[in-house]
């Protein structure tokens, strides 16, 4: 980190460095960064390097030829990038099928969660029925149950339904979502009541009020549920490991771990090329939906 950055942190930006010789501003001279500031920036720089370093190493190693990918010292800047590893990973595993499986599973879970959570969240927030609080508490209680406890009976149930080793085995159990329902309920509670009253005066029934008034207003909340579902299930490993058996039903993380097992330490760059490919959708979400994702992730803490 250059001293330029350090100074701009404490003082205001002056004009461009070219032009008339800068008249020294007494204020700026007085407020040189202290030892605390330098230490803070150093710590932040180290933390940022340790966070990004492994990802950059992965990217740069994936761009080396398979045979030299384990040479040391590692090259962090592959000047002549080599895409052999990317071609090779398509030969080693059926990347297209893995991506398709992951996209189908993740997409249908996200869509199913958005739909079911919107319906249930609306019922809990804005409809009157008996036993509302009791049912809502039961729904919330399921958040306390770790997936590892229910996985054995779910595995049996899936077998009983004749769905073992299908993508539906991954999709169906993941659609009911306690957290999504909770989020959508909060969202609907936060919307004003006036719209419903006005629509009711105009003769709209409960369904019309839901469909035409509240669903359009709830789209940002649904986006949070969808993005959270995408982020979680695109990266999911434990359930696919148990619920899928044949390679044609594998999702990306499972396919990559299998590839690493098959290739061992022979062609690092091939495996890492697969890892980088699998990160791309997450990167897109990170760039375009970071705010939504942050809101969703931290929403659970502010109950």
């Amino acid at each position, binding site marked *: 980190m250059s001293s330029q950055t350090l100074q701009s*942190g*404490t003082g205001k930006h002056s004009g461009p460095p070219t032009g008339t010789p800068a008249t020294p501003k007494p204020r700026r001279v007085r407020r040189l960064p202290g030892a605390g*500031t330098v230490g803070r920036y150093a*710590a932040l720089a180290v933390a*940022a390097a*340790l*966070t*990004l370093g*492994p990802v950059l*190493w992965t990217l740069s190693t994936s761009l080396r030829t398979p045979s030299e990918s384990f040479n040391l010292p590692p090259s962090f800047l592959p000047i002549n990038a080599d895409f052999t590893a990317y071609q090779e990973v398509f030969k080693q595993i059926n990347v297209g099928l893995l991506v398709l499986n992951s996209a189908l599973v993740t997409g249908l879970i996200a869509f199913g969660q958005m*739909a*079911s959570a919107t*319906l*249930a969240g*609306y*019922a809990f927030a804005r409809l009157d*029925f008996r036993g509302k609080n009791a*049912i809502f508490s039961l*729904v919330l209680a*399921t958040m306390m*149950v*770790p997936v*590892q*406890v*229910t*996985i*054995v009976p779910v*595995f*049996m*149930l899936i077998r009983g339904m004749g769905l073992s080793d299908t993508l539906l085995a991954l999709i169906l159990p993941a*659609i*009911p979502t*306690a957290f999504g329902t909770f989020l959508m309920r909060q969202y609907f509670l936060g919307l004003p009541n006036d719209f419903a009253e006005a629509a009711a*005066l*105009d*003769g709209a029934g409960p369904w*019309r009020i*839901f469909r035409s008034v509240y669903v359009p207003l709830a789209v940002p909340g649904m986006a949070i549920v969808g993005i959270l579902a995408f*982020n979680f299930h695109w*990266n*999911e*490993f*434990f359930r696919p*490991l*148990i619920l899928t058996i044949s390679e044609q039903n594998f999702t*990306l*993380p*499972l396919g*990559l*771990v299998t590839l690493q097992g098959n290739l061992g*330490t022979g062609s690092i760059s091939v*495996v*890492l090329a697969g890892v980088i490919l699998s990160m791309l959708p*997450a*990167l897109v979400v*990170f760039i375009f939906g970071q705010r939504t*994702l942050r809101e969703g*992730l*931290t929403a659970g*803490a502010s109950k």
Partner: protein
Amino acid sequence: MTTNSTVPRQTAKPPAVHRSFVERWLARIFLAPTVLGMALFTFLPIIASLVLAFFRWDIISAPQFVGFANFASLAQDPTVRVSFLNTIVFVAVAVILQLGIALCLASMLQARMPSWLRVFLRSTFFFPLVLSAASVSIFMRYMFNEQFGVVNWLLSLVGIPVVPWLTSPAASATVVVLVYVWQNFGFSFLLFLGALSNIPKELHEAANLDGATGWKQFSNVTLPLISPTVLVASVMAIISALQVFDQPYVLTNGGPGDSTRTAVMVIFESAFQQLEFGKASAIGLVLTVLILAVTALQFRLSRRFVFYQ
């Protein structure tokens, strides 16, 4: 909306009794996917797990009632005992590291700095959260490789001899913790960042005027104000660390020996490799009880120690 303007508004509104009838049915239909889905895929499995924990069953032969034998074997089976011990040590170390790093970084980000830098740092620390734990473990396994791993190479630059990261018990447990914390500190960081930015500026200014700066201000002003978040972040971190699986499975597969085997790995292995479904259920129930205990503790502690504004 097609409202006939000639019809008086009063008559357009259906009678209250009819409305509540429609609403009740609408609520039932709206709840059906979620509630029936949970009944089938969560409540039924919990009950099945509770029952299964008292049976010996390998899917092939008929289940056999064994009473508390599955639970008793948990205390005797050395693999299960070690895995629970590993899990508890892992949770303690990983959660303290995760919260400590997150709190330090979040408070450093409160200082004055250009906004592009703050956005860049926030995105950076948050980034590992969007990756898959399995993929992260794949590349970390290469980085921590004893011979050609980049970690040992970097350490050799500062004169540290080769560390057998994935082949010695203590070192591989360290790797699992490091990889887990690398990926998860960003979550606690986000929680702390939100809490810190909600503290009114005047409080810090008042503390400055009173001469409370640095650590004194942090421990006497900042920490009490964010204590509700610290508690929530700790509980969430503990609950998710108790369920650690992907990292040890991919990095070390529990080894060397049982040194990085965790409770969830034993559930997985008992059920799907040794076909001891009763034993797997029993371990799962013990894990659930641990998670419920942590949650219950949260409610008790929040009444005693947490300072609410």
